[in-house]
């Protein structure tokens, strides 16, 4: 079943077209890789589908419903969640309180329910010491906390914007396994932006490739990675 789909999605910033005519869709249970060189428009694309910025033209559909111009907080309630490339811990809240925020506002749970649900999410991601200040967390713990906060929205679509960046090999492996488990158990459609191709290869069922805002290739990683246009985008014309 198609969860999320865009049609001709375009966003221009003062003449620079950051996302250009992108049409794609994501199905239930699918882990989709979103790759492309720096500046290709990956994060802008996620900002557009999550409602952080609005498109210049085109359409975003969530479960058949037009959400193109819906504000971000309403999309969060509807079931679209995301994390950020630059970490966004809420510094004056503890670890568990950070996670509770998604439950309280996206799901409108009371504080008690939200705390119980947040504790469960933290446990499933292997987080402990839940009353700690965010300043006392490791980078891996902050990334997990942000994933937990997004999951507290109880989303059906989840975007992870470079969550593996800055983690070492062991940490990356651990997080890949956890994301896979979570996606499977919750039947999530997951969109993953990553620069490390090993992660994309391991984690995703399908990949879309953006270059200069345009979708230039689509398919399983093995197939896309052999696509001459993709190789050229990554290595430049000389290759």
């Amino acid at each position, binding site marked *: 079943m198609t969860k999320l789909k865009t049609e001709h999605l375009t966003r221009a910033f003062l003449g620079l077209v950051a996302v250009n005519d992108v049409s794609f869709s994501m199905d239930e249970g699918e882990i989709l890789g979103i790759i492309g060189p720096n500046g290709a428009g990956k994060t802008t694309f996620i900002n557009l589908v*999550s*409602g*952080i910025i609005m498109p210049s033209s085109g359409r975003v559909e969530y479960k058949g419903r037009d959400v193109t111009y819906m*504000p*971000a*907080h309403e999309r*969060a*309630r509807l079931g679209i*969640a*995301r994390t*950020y490339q630059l970490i*966004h*811990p*809420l*510094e*004056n*809240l503890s670890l568990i*309180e950070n996670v*509770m*925020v*998604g439950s*309280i*506002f*996206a*799901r409108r749970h009371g*504080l008690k329910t939200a705390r119980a649900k947040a504790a469960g999410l933290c446990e499933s991601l292997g987080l402990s010491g839940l009353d700690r200040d965010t300043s006392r967390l490791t980078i891996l713990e902050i990334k997990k906390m942000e994933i937990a*906060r*997004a999951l*507290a*929205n109880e989303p059906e679509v989840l975007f992870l914007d470079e969550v593996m960046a800055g983690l070492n090999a062991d940490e990356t492996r651990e997080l890949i396994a956890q994301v896979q488990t979570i996606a499977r158990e919750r039947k999530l459609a997951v969109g993953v932006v990553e620069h490390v191709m090993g992660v994309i290869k391991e984690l995703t069922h399908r990949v879309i490739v953006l270059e200069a805002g345009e979708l230039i290739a689509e398919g399983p990683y093995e197939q896309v990675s052999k696509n001459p246009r993709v190789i050229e985008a990554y290595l430049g014309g000389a290759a």
Partner: protein
Amino acid sequence: MNRNLLRALAFAAGALAVSLPAFAGAYPLQVARNVIMYMALALTWDMLLRSGQISFGIAGLFGLGAYATALGVLRAGMGDWLSLAFAPVFAGAAALLIGFLILRLRAMYFSIVTLALAEIFRIVIHNLHDFTGGPEGVVLDGVMLGGSAAALYWLTLGGLAVALGASWWFEKSKFHFALTAIRNNETAARSSGVDIFRWLLATFVITSAIQGLLGGIYVQSYGFATPDSVFDANFTLLPLAIALLGGIHSTIGPVFGAILLGLSSEWLKLRLPYGHLVVYGVIIVVVILFMPQGLYGLARKGLRRAEGRAE
């Protein structure tokens, strides 16, 4: 710290505050009334600050509430209590309208607009001579509760109870999560489903209504209102200084800040007439430079460090 000890201390402080008229003379009671009034205003200012929004408009809402009460009595024939209830309703309604217009502004822009609005209210009331009494203001037939110093003190204490209750509720409810998330990172807050505008509007209306109520209490305690007395810049600046000194983003900070600054300024007034304002200014500068989280923030940090060592 021990929760029961804190509870006992709070109870003792409350009992002391309520029973103060039994043993304090007219002068200390008057000082206490001032301290309480500013403490309540500081709490309301801090409540909005917890969302990251710095208002310089306290005097504006305080003055609106004061005039709502005074004109409610004089022009609409309201009874004393009804006129008191009218103040927060009027200030809250004004805040709702204003909030729609200005709560999309942030940082300096928001602060400056609140400052300008307070000045606009003052000028409008100043110039609506026939209705508001103009620059000479309005005088009530008498003060409320027969002018009993003890009763008026308790009335002001009631205003503080409202502010304390609201502040405590903000700390324990969804407001805490909404406002802290907004202050920390609006983008992250939105992605977690926080309707930022709605929470800011609710906070602005609630804090403004309480500021209006305090203005109403002020008028009913002194029996008159002039544009210069109820829109005095001190009603904006002292609460700010109190919250900064005591510790922002908390209920306990403004409480201690008001007691410290209130009592020390009273003492300084006697020692150094006029000079006390200079000392006052120095205190504020030192606090902002060396302990931006205020005394409570400093204490919290010390406590955390001690805990860290104990671990």
